[in-house]
């Protein structure tokens, strides 16, 4: 789906995302002022949303440099398209979709085929979760901490990671993901399930998980 899809999707606000993206104090005024060309207002919008946008890019791309580039692109695109925001969904939801679509287009341009139906989403055989999903030796010992899960998510094959981040972290619904990734809702459900199974495997050996790129950079 191209960026034009944003206009269509804006007319179908997602109640779940509204819940997760409550209005921010001063945001509405900043949007109107930024629409009128006020640079300070645009700077405020950047300050309000940079972390959400950057974190989304980082999770989807798994690479700090690319995530920063895409964050930059997202806000430049926002600057150009802000006038088309009609307020029919939460601004953060709209910006979120804009960012997701930019990242997906970026990945398609890279030729990684991360988001088309077959190769994009389907990982190689060795990346796929094992079939003995119900056996006791694959069970998690107990609860999962957030940092460990973040590292496990970063270790997922890109296609699995994409669907998992969009659904379980960002709160998009399967029909929305299917539209964005140009696949069926059944495919989205199936890939999400495989992603969770793969995470279950990865989380059984947290000591073997690589550090995320962002945490490495912090250490450096």
């Amino acid at each position, binding site marked *: 789906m191209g960026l034009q899809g944003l206009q269509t999707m804006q007319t179908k606000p997602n109640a779940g995302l509204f819940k*997760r993206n409550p209005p921010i104090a001063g945001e509405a005024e900043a949007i109107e002022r930024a629409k009128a*060309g006020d*640079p*300070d207002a*645009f*700077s405020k919008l*950047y*300050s309000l949303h*940079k*972390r*959400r946008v*950057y*974190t989304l890019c*980082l*999770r989807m791309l798994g690479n700090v440099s690319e*995530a*920063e580039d895409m*964050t*930059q692109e997202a*806000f*430049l695109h926002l*600057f150009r398209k802000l006038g088309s925001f009609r307020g029919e969904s939460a601004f953060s939801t709209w910006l979120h979709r804009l960012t997701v679509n930019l990242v997906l287009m970026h990945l398609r341009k890279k030729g990684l085929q991360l988001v088309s139906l077959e190769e994009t989403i389907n990982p190689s055989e060795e990346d796929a979760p094992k079939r003995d*999903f*119900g*056996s*006791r030796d*694959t*069970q*998690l010992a107990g*609860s*999962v*901490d*957030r940092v460990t*899960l*973040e590292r496990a*998510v970063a270790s997922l094959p890109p296609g699995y990671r994409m669907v*998992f981040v969009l659904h*379980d*972290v*960002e*709160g998009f619904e*399967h029909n929305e993901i299917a539209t964005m990734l140009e696949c069926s809702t*059944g495919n989205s*459900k*199936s890939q*999400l*399930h495989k992603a*969770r*199974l793969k*995470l*279950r495997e990865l*989380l059984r050996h947290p000591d073997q998980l690589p550090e995320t790129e*962002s945490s490495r950079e912090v250490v450096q």
Partner: protein
Amino acid sequence: MSDLPNLDFDSMTVAEFEQYLPELFASQESGHLSDDPRLAKFLAANPDCAALVRDLETIAETAKSLFVSEEEPSDSVWSNIANKLKQQTGDGDDPVDLSE
């Protein structure tokens, strides 16, 4: 569960459970499949499947907490944005102040 066939949850096989698990999870708005009374008997009879459901629920639940976990982009991101916007919006005579 409109996408599910008329499953007899009590006599469902493990293979059927595996086959329909993605749809079963997707059909639960709460994400807590273990709370579904229709599955109670099956999960009680199949502890490995019950453990699987619990694990996947834990993963999905923990994933929600990642939503509020945010990272900070470097300062250079805004510098680049501001520079590009100056190039796009300014004609050079009246540069736009885009300091954050």
